[in-house]
């Protein structure tokens, strides 16, 4: 029953203020698709255009073969979960869940059996006669999900559904959401600004900035081969450094001040000497206690022991600050002022054009280009 969502050349503006200039995306049937981006990037706006609560100034929105641009929100057959859950406070849990079914004029027995089924599925059947003000945040979340799902919607839309929960419940509920979506097999569009949450639940993630999708891919490809500097810095932590790519005799070398190392993964079309931006994640910097070894030289500013890992904050001799995460070792933690040298894991590091718009390595999977 799951449907494909196709959006082509979507345009959204408020007056003269363009929020989404020209956005196209295909969401596969049954897929858990996440819109991820900083606040104000237009992700919620796009979701509400799909839901029908925001007007569409241009472009086409399709559920399967059905164009939904002009369809009233109540006719789109969507299930929606809101940031504040939007539970009707004057109805019991059961009445909240039934609400959508009653609007569909189902026979009473069927309403009851479906409601029971979803109350059970969300493990809130014991709360059926409670009023919402006597539910915890997690329970309200479950009611919202049951209510959205029991109408058998074509698509499930979720707008930052976990942001009002505490950290522990957030982790618990995202597993619940992921499993339910998988069991029901419904196409799901999920909005969040929390990149860890996005990676935990999604089949694919679209990273958005300023109304434009930067990168669409699965969590692994987005983390390991980000399409541009924005994606690299938004997803996970990273150190941005400036350096050069030098091509000699068909081989590419990454040069950072006097540190030089061979790169085997540069894409053929970018094989030319040029200034580049380097994104190296804290775990991709390898710390050597011998300050005279080959590598980037620097001074330890601070060290934080966190059990599994130890974080080092190092000032490079070039003046740049970098963060390094190292698995904690049994040796003494390095103190402030210790001289060290650093090498880069060339398999994992990412290199970008000097303007930051493109990753110049092979292996970038961006469905946006497809």
């Amino acid at each position, binding site marked *: 029953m799951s449907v494909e969502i196709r959006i082509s050349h979507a345009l959204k503006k408020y007056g003269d203020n363009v929020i989404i200039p020209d956005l196209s995306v295909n969401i596969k049937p049954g897929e858990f698709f996440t819109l991820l981006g900083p606040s104000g990037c237009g992700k919620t706006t796009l979701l509400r255009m799909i839901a029908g609560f925001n007007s569409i100034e241009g472009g086409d929105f399709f559920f399967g073969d059905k164009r939904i641009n002009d369809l009233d929100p*109540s006719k789109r057959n969507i299930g929606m979960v*809101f*940031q504040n859950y939007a539970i009707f406070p004057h109805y019991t849990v059961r009445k909240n869940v039934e609400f959508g079914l009653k*609007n569909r004029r189902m026979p009473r027995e069927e309403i009851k059996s479906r409601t029971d089924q979803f109350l059970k599925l969300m493990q809130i059947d014991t709360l059926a006669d409670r009023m919402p003000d006597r539910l915890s945040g997690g329970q309200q979340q479950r009611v919202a999900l049951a209510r959205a799902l029991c*109408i058998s919607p074509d698509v499930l839309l979720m707008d930052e559904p976990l942001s009002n929960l505490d950290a522990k419940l957030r982790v618990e509920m995202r597993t619940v959401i992921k499993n339910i979506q998988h069991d029901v097999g419904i196409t799901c569009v999920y909005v969040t600004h929390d990149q860890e949450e996005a990676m935990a639940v999604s089949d694919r993630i679209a990273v958005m900035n300023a109304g434009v999708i930067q990168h669409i891919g699965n969590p692994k490809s987005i983390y390991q081969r980000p399409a541009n500097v924005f994606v690299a810095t938004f997803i996970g932590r990273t150190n941005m450094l400036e350096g050069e790519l030098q091509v000699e005799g068909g081989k590419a070398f990454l040069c950072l001040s006097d540190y030089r190392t061979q790169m085997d993964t540069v894409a053929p079309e970018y094989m030319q000497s040029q200034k580049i931006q380097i994104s190296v994640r804290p775990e991709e910097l390898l710390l050597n206690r011998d300050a005279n070894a080959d590598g980037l030289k620097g001074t330890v500013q601070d060290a934080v022991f966190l059990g599994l890992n130890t974080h080092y904050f190092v000032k490079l001799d070039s003046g740049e600050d970098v963060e390094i995460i190292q698995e904690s070792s049994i040796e003494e933690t390095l103190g402030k002022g210790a001289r060290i040298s650093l090498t880069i894991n060339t398999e994992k590091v990412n290199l970008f054009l000097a303007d930051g718009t493109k990753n110049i390595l092979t292996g970038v999977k961006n469905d946006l280009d497809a």
Partner: protein
Amino acid sequence: MEKNKKFELWTVMTIVFFLLFLLILVYPMFGILKQSLYDKEGALTLANFSKFFAKKYYTNTIINSFKVTIVVTLVSLLIGIPLSYFYSFYRLKGAKVIFVVSILCCMSAPFLGALSWIMLLGRNGIVTKFFLNVFKIRLGSIYGFKGILLVQALKYFPLVFIYMNGAFRNIDNTLIEASANMGCTGVRRFFKIILQLSMPTVLAASLMVFMQAFADFGTPMIIGEGYRTFPVEIYSQYLGENGRDYGFAAAISVIAILITALVFFLQQWATGKFRFSISALHPVEKKPAKGIGGFLMHLYAYLLIFIGFAPNLYIVYLSFVNSDGAVFKTGYSFNNYRLAAKKLLVRSINNTLTLGVGSLIIIIVFAVIVSYLVVRRSSPINHAIDTMAMLPYIMPGAVVGIALVMAFGSKPFALTGTMTIMILNLVVRRMPYTIRSASATLMQISPSIEEAAISLGASKLKTFARITVPMMSSGIVSGAILSWVAIVTELSGSIILYNNKTITLTMSTYVQINRGNYGTACAFAAILTVVTILSLLIYIKVSGSEDDIKL
């Protein structure tokens, strides 16, 4: 794309209410302005205004009104704020009693205080006589400025009290602790922190007291005697013994509106200077009121509400004292009620209930729809509707009355003397308050709850009826009961519009006082008081928490 702009119900509502408000709000106000600018021959003239400003007799009415209202406002603040401070920051014994009695004081009919104080301190008042006979002391006159001040200050300080309770409750305890931490406590903290934080509310309360006191017709009419205020002047120019002068009454009305508008904008401007928002995560913990200070606080609170409420009780008592209608005698009987029954008592009660229920239903329906249009369908035209709905806020009751007579008294409408115009007056007068409280309630309801209903397949109308209105209902009900009391005790507009067929309890009371039938008046007033008290007790029961009171 074009289909989105289909003609929906709310667009129809917008058009209907825009036209309706033009008819019942803008047109009468415009009519008053027009009337004031034309002479009897229909020529454009400023004669009405120059007549007003030429004679000290007339200008004095406005100056008098202004003077007494300013003093009333200040005195109300002066006695109301300390009461609220003690109530909000200390654990007073019988706090609930203090609160309920305060509401009863400020919701009683506007002129009952005047009537009662005349019975106590007037020329033949029992206190006056007692002092004269026992101590041979002649008490000063209660009539005039002093009387108005006494009656109005005692009626409006509870308004300040209720407003300030809300403000004090929003002060976060950590702010109090922080100021103590930096060595600022006691009286200094009250003025430097607590009062400063409550300034927007102080201003809001001041405006409320000013508007109500300025427009009060009954009190100055009964106890003012030679001290003429402008609502009395409008009334006497309109109905007066010296012959009717609509043009001149209209001119006074225009001047009154200008003054209230000026005060309104001045208040808005001043409030703008205190723009900050606070919300208490840690509400203030009430301290026990111990020792001599605690005793004085209790004394202050109870003395104040006693003086405020005693007049009402005294009137109920008097209603059972034997009288021939005008003069009280010894012994107790139902004589006053028997006499009242001959003076349209049944009709008055019937009319009061009919008018009250009728206008209340209309007000609620209007308020719900208008607040929805304003809050959820923001558009220039809906904004205009909101602004129009607030017009009566700056129109004193007597002015509304005059405006309605002028607008609907003649040819196409000819509503004078009908129940319709009485209801119209009540709707126009009370609507701004109800719309305000309905809008405030609606603003607190997240739009996503309505969106959830729509996404679950409910139509917009069904969402409104099944989700929005029920969620607003608590706000609507608490607003409605206060509107009900205000409607039942309304005098200043109705006095111009009523006749024998549409007379109400309030009007009957006033008529009897005017004729010197104090005994009969007390019977009417006692019934009115009982109706008010019962309504408010129901209100407190329904609203559940005393803390949620909205005026």
